[in-house]
């Protein structure tokens, strides 16, 4: 027995020594993140590597990485009573190994700008001052800068982005499919003018440093946007870009006009470059993915050909197949990725629910190359894929948020299992 015991202790000692050595080796490699052998289970272009840096964080919606590498995740459901998680990599292996929760509200939006962390609930936006250690000074006492925004349990998330001039742009999604008199009732006509547009169905602009702003203090910056989940301020051209979730149920309501397959691919999910006063057309117009044209919605007399005054609305700059749900947008400004990615747009697609009985689709991250003029310079391409897993109709992971690390790596969050990936490029 004692021989066995001695052997056991010896073995344990050896293992401890080995693991200590392994720990040292990892520490040496602090500045060169090591992708997982299987890229964290996702497919990436050649030269890119994926690493799972956090798992089971909660329902992670949007994320932001601070200049010191801390990642902040906004949760859609409280975890241990907290709605924001700060993740920190303490040993430099790329994986987050410390989680600190704060904020007692659910929501989607998350960003850091000029010494403040901003986070949104479904009706409000708060900000937390960062201290000299680049950490949230007081997680219990944020300033409420925006309040009283619509939450009618449909498209209620309030994602946002910030410009360089002290403004914050907040989505107020329309609690409606197509502004019918009776929402989502077959045959119910579209309301004209659509009364929802006074309070929702657009992006509102507020000041970052004024407390308790609501509709009266805000500016309806862009309208005619059903539900914008992805917003980013493109610093290369100093302009706001958004991705819209298009309407549902064209085939279910108008089978005489749309085949089942056309209903699954229509209308396009669209990306717009917007300016103050832009009207992107919802609920009167939609972009027909099959016909490649902006036309009238059938609730407003459309027959897939009539354009009405849709030609005078803001035209989208990129169109995707229907229902893929573009949930976040990020203009890449890092130096790690190859030149073609510089100032281009990454878009996280949450994946569809409304293509049935066609197979569901999406659940990937797309890249759109951009030229110096702030316009797309090529076709969109799938950048990261395989999040859904074996059954596309029961996706395991759903991309929801994007963030850029200080070294130029790209972070992708999933709100189904709470997984976060870091994507790096090795020259």
């Amino acid at each position, binding site marked *: 027995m004692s021989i066995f015991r001695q052997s056991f202790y010896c073995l344990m000692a050896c293992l401890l020594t080995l693991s200590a050595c392994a720990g040292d080796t990892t520490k040496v490699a602090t500045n060169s993140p090591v992708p997982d052998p299987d890229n964290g289970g996702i497919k990436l272009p050649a030269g890119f590597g994926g690493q799972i840096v956090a798992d089971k964080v909660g329902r992670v919606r949007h994320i932001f990485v601070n200049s010191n590498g801390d990642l902040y995740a906004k949760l859609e459901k409280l975890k241990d009573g907290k709605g924001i998680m700060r993740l920190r990599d303490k040993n430099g292996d790329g994986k987050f190994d410390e989680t600190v929760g704060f904020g007692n509200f659910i929501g989607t939006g998350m960003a850091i700008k000029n010494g403040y962390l901003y986070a949104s609930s479904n009706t409000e936006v708060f900000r937390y001052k960062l201290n000299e250690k680049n950490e949230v000074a007081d997680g219990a006492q944020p300033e409420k800068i925006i309040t009283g925004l619509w939450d009618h349990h*449909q498209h*209620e998330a309030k994602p946002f982005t910030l410009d360089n001039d002290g403004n914050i742009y907040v989505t107020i999604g329309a609690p409606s499919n197509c502004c019918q008199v009776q929402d989502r009732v077959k045959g119910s006509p579209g309301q004209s003018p659509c009364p929802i547009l006074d309070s929702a169905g657009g992006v509102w602009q507020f000041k970052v440093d004024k407390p308790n702003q609501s509709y009266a203090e805000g500016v309806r910056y862009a309208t005619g946007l059903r539900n914008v989940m992805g917003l980013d301020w493109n610093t290369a051209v100093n302009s706001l870009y958004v991705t819209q979730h298009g309407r549902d149920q064209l085939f279910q309501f108008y089978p005489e006009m749309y085949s089942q397959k056309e209903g699954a691919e229509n209308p396009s999910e669209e990306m717009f470059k917007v300016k103050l006063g832009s009207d992107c057309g919802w609920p009167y117009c939609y972009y027909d993915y099959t016909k490649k044209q902006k036309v009238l919605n059938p609730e407003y007399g459309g027959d897939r050909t009539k354009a009405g005054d849709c030609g005078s609305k803001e035209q989208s700059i990129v169109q995707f197949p229907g229902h893929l749900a573009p949930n976040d947008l990020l203009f890449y400004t890092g130096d790690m990725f190859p030149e073609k990615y510089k100032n281009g747009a990454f878009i996280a697609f949450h994946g569809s*629910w*409304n293509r*049935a009985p066609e197979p569901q689709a999406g659940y990937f991250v797309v890249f759109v190359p951009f030229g110096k003029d702030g316009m797309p310079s090529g076709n969109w391409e799938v950048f990261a894929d395989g999040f859904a897993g074996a059954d596309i109709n029961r996706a395991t992971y759903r991309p929801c948020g994007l963030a850029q690390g200080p070294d130029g790596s790209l972070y992708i969050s999933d709100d189904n299992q709470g997984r976060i990936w870091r994507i790096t490029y090795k020259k």
Partner: protein
Amino acid sequence: MRFAPTGVNMKTISAIIFPVLVLFICAFTLPQQSGLKASKDRGKVVYDTYCLACHMQDGGGAPRMNPPLIKTKFVLGDKKKLIGIVMNGLSGVEVEGEDYSNVMAPHNFLTDQQIADVLTYVRNNFGNKASAVTVAEVKAARPKK
């Protein structure tokens, strides 16, 4: 007198009783089963036309959007309440601890027969097992004009 049935007698009795018993049971269950099957078959057509787009082919719904119909208390529980959901629609509902945000439109344009059939189908499909919904039950739940 001794009553001592012989083996032959027993066989004769069984030979008579067994088919009668089978007939008896069939007489009660077969029509019911075929009635249930017919209702489910009709219900599937209604489901595929009006429900599948949101609740999916497998009744699993869509996460956080449209609730599942698999072994939930809404589906297996109070029939009157269930009929009411089909007729009046529903939005912003919590099912088995999860919130679902999408809007279900009222489906009061469906006939009593269609509502009975589709709910019978849902209550006896997707792994569910519950009593059928009858036309009379739907009629009783429909608001009087």
